[in-house]
């Protein structure tokens, strides 16, 4: 989230698209409803199905699964064509005026630089032109046909109401209703926000859907303001934290990039990863990247990391250039028999992974698996799952009992980046201990083995700093938290040239902000974005419980700690005009008063950008300091484009001859079947969670209060389709895709209705993904037996939200 949950109350128009906020973030919905009551905000729900969210919104607009970019592209077209964009903001805070490189082009669904063989783009032509001094070229009149604004306008002029309506199945009236209501926020004193969740990310075009929305928000001036932003309502209690700390193949803690084989030295790596800007007004904060990275290596290897050994850079594993190692890749390799061991901590991929049938077959090829959890699940017990003969499965399985959340001390980060400290209320039952303690103990045993026996590449293991237990030998979360924050490893004097101050820090003191991190190995920080979660004196800011709210906007700066540097709304300097006066005086997030910013913690202390000498642009983490309407970051193009889902009802993409996202990876095992526009699987299917369960249901199905409310798998079918198929409410039916099938209860409902797409009737059905064979008995099996192994081209989020099925009576 660029903003945070309470901030939703500051909005004038809330577009909920790709999210079922009322069902999955009921407390977020508290703040959404408060916006309606306090500001008279319009609540809009755009979603294939009518849900509890729709019931409370001003209007619900159903669209066919997987057509979000078309829907939003139409909105960009509407905003530009009807002159709804916020000119002052677009001119000053976005790259609208930049000139796109001459070699860049877009034709029939493909951008310049595509290689069909590798399904990859060479981004060399996706550049912005620069003056001789390295500063980007700009045309502030926005008339240059090669300027970003004109290119954007041209690209989205293809998304006419007729076209969008035909693709999405939304009537033109409904399109205009949403576009008009939302684009009304493109004025200084109105804020519009967007809430999304897995409804957007679970597509082969997920990242680009989000980018399309970011473009809209930039055009309307809704980024960096109270009640604005593009807000991911994330689904797990600490998915923000687990991402921040990089339990992901492609990043290291603090969003540092995972090194690749070609970057064989630290210097090469840092050069590649550190962006450069010649524009004096661009803060380009990532110029500090090397300090963050070296401090991270120091936290890992401590005194074993020296300048001479590149702070242990060579000990880090390196990815192959251009390769990916996501969940789907992991199970693909496992299915090939190349993965021998697996740690599965608090996770249930046998239910939650796409094409779960393949995942289960893959698990049988493991030599060993270590599970850590508070309940058993289908992954740990895969060897006695449906159709599996245990006597033929060689896998050794360990299931270690873990402490539940309230049985351990530590911090959790919510989607609004609030890192909140929680306390241990009681001991865990039996032999259960925190996952942290299991991790410490397993690694300690491994370290001991390598110390005793030696082995292949033992250095990173033996040199890893690993003293995170208390005097009783138990997990000490405070010790880890401080290591994440970071220490001064030597006596250091920090000099502030602007303020002409010098501050002395002693060796062993905590780093009070990431601004103090050093390149020379004199500081450590396990995760630079968390540097500042403690004061130098050791006060834990994450445990703060102050209720002061001076802005009245619900920032609560003294409640817990928000990264970075307790900033509650990211890019908040964009809430003011170039002179630092708030665009909306009623919601004063920040203001330049005298010689300083007042309000939220600003994105840097510099004056507003009208001050040509010292002023900086607001988007300080961007190389150019401005919001990117033209964004070369994504792998499938600088402007989002509509592509059909891997499996859909149409044989052709109405927008171009590229039916599917040209940059997605296609998996080719014999279990990766696809059935596009196939009459055997005529219905669009989407999957989702329900309020009463959580993720794979591996926690919630063991809880009778919750199970009682949603006891078994169901498929929601519209009344028209049900009648066509002769299915009655509560009857047992079979839902099948080309990959698998599940039995479930039919829930015949008025809430699903057929779409008219490209002139033909398309039915959509939906199933929750919260069930598995292990428990409860008769609760049916995983919906993911149906879903395809395919994911977003940037993030590899699987496409759970759009594929094709058939439904038949049992």
């Amino acid at each position: 989230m660029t903003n945070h949950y309470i901030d939703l109350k500051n909005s004038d128009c809330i577009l909920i698209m790709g999210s079922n906020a009322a069902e999955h973030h009921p407390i977020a919905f508290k703040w959404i409803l408060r916006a309606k009551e306090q500001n008279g905000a319009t609540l809009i729900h755009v979603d294939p199905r009518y849900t509890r969210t729709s019931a409370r919104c001003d209007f619900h607009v159903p669209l066919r699964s997987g057509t979000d970019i078309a829907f939003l592209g139409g909105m960009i077209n509407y905003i530009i064509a009807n002159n709804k964009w916020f000119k002052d903001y677009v001119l000053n805070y976005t790259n609208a005026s930049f000139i796109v490189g001459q070699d860049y082009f877009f034709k029939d669904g493909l951008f310049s630089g595509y290689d069909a063989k590798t399904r990859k783009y060479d981004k060399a032509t996706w550049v912005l032109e620069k003056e001789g001094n390295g500063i980007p070229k700009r045309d502030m009149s926005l008339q240059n046909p090669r300027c970003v604004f004109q290119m954007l306008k041209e690209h989205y002029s293809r998304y006419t109401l007729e076209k969008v309506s035909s693709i999405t199945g939304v009537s033109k009236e409904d399109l205009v209703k949403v576009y008009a209501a939302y684009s009304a926020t493109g004025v200084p004193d109105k804020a519009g926000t967007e809430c999304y969740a897995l409804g957007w990310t679970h597509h082969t075009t997920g990242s680009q859907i989000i980018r399309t929305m970011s473009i809209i928000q930039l055009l309307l001036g809704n980024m960096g303001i109270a009640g604005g932003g593009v807000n991911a309502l994330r689904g797990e209690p600490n998915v923000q934290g687990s991402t921040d700390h990089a339990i992901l193949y492609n990043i290291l803690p603090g969003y540092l990039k995972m090194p690749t084989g070609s970057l064989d030295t630290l210097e090469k790596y840092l050069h590649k990863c550190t962006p450069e800007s010649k524009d004096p007004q661009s803060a380009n904060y990532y110029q500090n990247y090397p300090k963050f990275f070296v401090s991270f290596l120091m936290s890992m290897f401590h005194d074993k990391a020296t300048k001479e050994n590149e702070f242990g850079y060579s000990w880090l594993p390196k990815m192959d250039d251009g390769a990916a190692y996501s969940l789907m890749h992991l199970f693909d390799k496992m299915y090939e028999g190349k993965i021998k061991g697996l740690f599965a901590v608090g996770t249930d991929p046998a239910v939650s992974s796409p094409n779960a049938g393949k995942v289960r077959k893959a698990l049988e090829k493991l030599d060993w698996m270590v599970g850590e959890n508070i309940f058993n699940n289908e992954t740990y017990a895969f060897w006695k799952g449906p159709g599996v003969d245990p006597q033929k499965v060689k896998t050794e399985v360990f299931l270690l009992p873990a402490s539940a959340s309230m049985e351990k001390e530590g911090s959790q980060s919510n989607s609004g980046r609030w890192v909140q400290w929680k306390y241990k209320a009681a001991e865990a039952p039996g032999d259960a201990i925190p996952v942290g303690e299991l991790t410490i103990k397993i690694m300690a045993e491994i370290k001991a083995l390598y110390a005793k026996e030696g082995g292949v590449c033992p250095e990173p293991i033996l040199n890893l700093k690993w003293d995170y237990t208390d005097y009783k030998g138990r997990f000490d979360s405070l010790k880890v938290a401080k290591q994440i924050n970071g220490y001064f490893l030597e006596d250091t004097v920090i000099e502030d040239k602007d303020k002409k101050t010098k501050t002395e820090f002693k060796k062993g003191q905590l780093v009070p902000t990431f601004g103090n991190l050093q390149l020379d190995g004199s500081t450590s920080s396990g995760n630079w974005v968390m540097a500042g979660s403690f004061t130098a004196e050791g006060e834990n800011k994450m445990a703060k419980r102050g209720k002061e709210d001076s802005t009245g906007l619900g920032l609560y700066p003294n409640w817990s700690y928000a990264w970075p540097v307790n900033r509650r709304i990211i890019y908040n300097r964009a809430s003011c005009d170039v002179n630092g006066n708030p665009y909306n005086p009623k919601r004063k997030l920040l203001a330049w008063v005298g010689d300083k910013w007042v309000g939220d913690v600003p994105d840097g202390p510099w004056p507003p950008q009208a001050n040509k000498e010292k002023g900086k642009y607001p988007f300080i983490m961007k190389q150019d300091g401005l919001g990117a309407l033209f964004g070369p970051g994504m792998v499938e193009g600088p402007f989002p484009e509509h592509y059909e889902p891997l499996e859909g009802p149409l044989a052709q993409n109405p927008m171009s001859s590229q039916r599917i996202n040209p940059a997605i990876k296609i998996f080719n095992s014999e279990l990766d079947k696809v059935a596009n526009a196939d009459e055997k699987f005529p219905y669009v299917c989407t999957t989702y969670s329900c309020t009463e369960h959580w993720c794979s249901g591996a926690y919630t199905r063991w809880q009778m209060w919750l199970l009682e409310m949603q006891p078994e798998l169901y498929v929601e079918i519209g009344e028209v389709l049900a009648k066509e198929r002769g299915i009655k409410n509560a009857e047992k039916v079979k839902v099948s895709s080309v990959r698998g099938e599940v039995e479930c209860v039919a829930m015949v409902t008025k809430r699903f209705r057929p779409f008219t797409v490209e002139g033909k009737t398309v039915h959509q059905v939906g199933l929750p993904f919260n069930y598995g064979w292990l428990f409860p008995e008769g609760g049916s099996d995983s919906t993911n037996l149906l879903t395809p192994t395919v994911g977003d081209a940037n993030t590899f989020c699987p496409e759970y939200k759009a594929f094709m099925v058939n439904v038949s009576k049992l």
Partner: protein
Amino acid sequence: MKKMELVKLIDTTRCTACRGCQVACKQWNELPGLKTKNWGSYQNPPDLQWNTWTLIRFNEVADKDNRVKWLFRKDGCMHCTDAACVKVCPSGALYHTEYGTVGIHHERCIGCKECMAACPFEIPKYDRDTDKVYKCDLCYSRIKDDQQPACVKSCPTGALSIGAKDAMIKKAYDRVKKLGGDANVYGDQFVDGTHVIYVLQEKPEMYDHLPKHPRVPFSVVAWKDFLKPISLLAAGGVLAGSFLHYIIHGPKTPDDIQENKTQGGE
């Protein structure tokens, strides 16, 4: 000691059917979850049960323009002022608390199920294992300690609130005025006013299981208000009559034994 009369307001126009209240109720009152099956609805258990004192009901309706509406209603004890259940309860298990709500002393309940038949809202539910009847007591143990009932406390969106009777009724009518359309207040107009009132988004008949004109059943009135005093009168009458008969008319004593003998000798 008479305390302030409390009213719980259920504003269905704010409810998202997250069912936090349904679980919070079970958590606080230590009621188990039981095995259910999907019967083609989100609403589960299908009805109130001895272990489910508050239940979100889901209603799918299509309006005149064929637009779908999904109505949510939290069902549970209405805490009537003229409470049929209290009237009929033989053991005094059901009673009016000092807040005007209807409390239940489970230890006194004898499982006669009379309240189940009497309640116009079909709220009390019977459990065979304990042979007792259960229903919401508006978290008497909590309100006594100035805590909100568990359901009210858990409600994320402010659909549930509790407060002084007059203030809550006013709040309900203000809300209805603001909403316009078919919105209406339900609860204060019958059984001398319930201590749970609704702001309904639609007319009452649009909601499942919500009586349009709830009232104490005539049979209960006939019995409790009419037959009961009559029966006392009748019993008293018989006693008095017998006594009067004895002292005025005297017993019917057999005649002289000799006479009988003569007859017997025939």
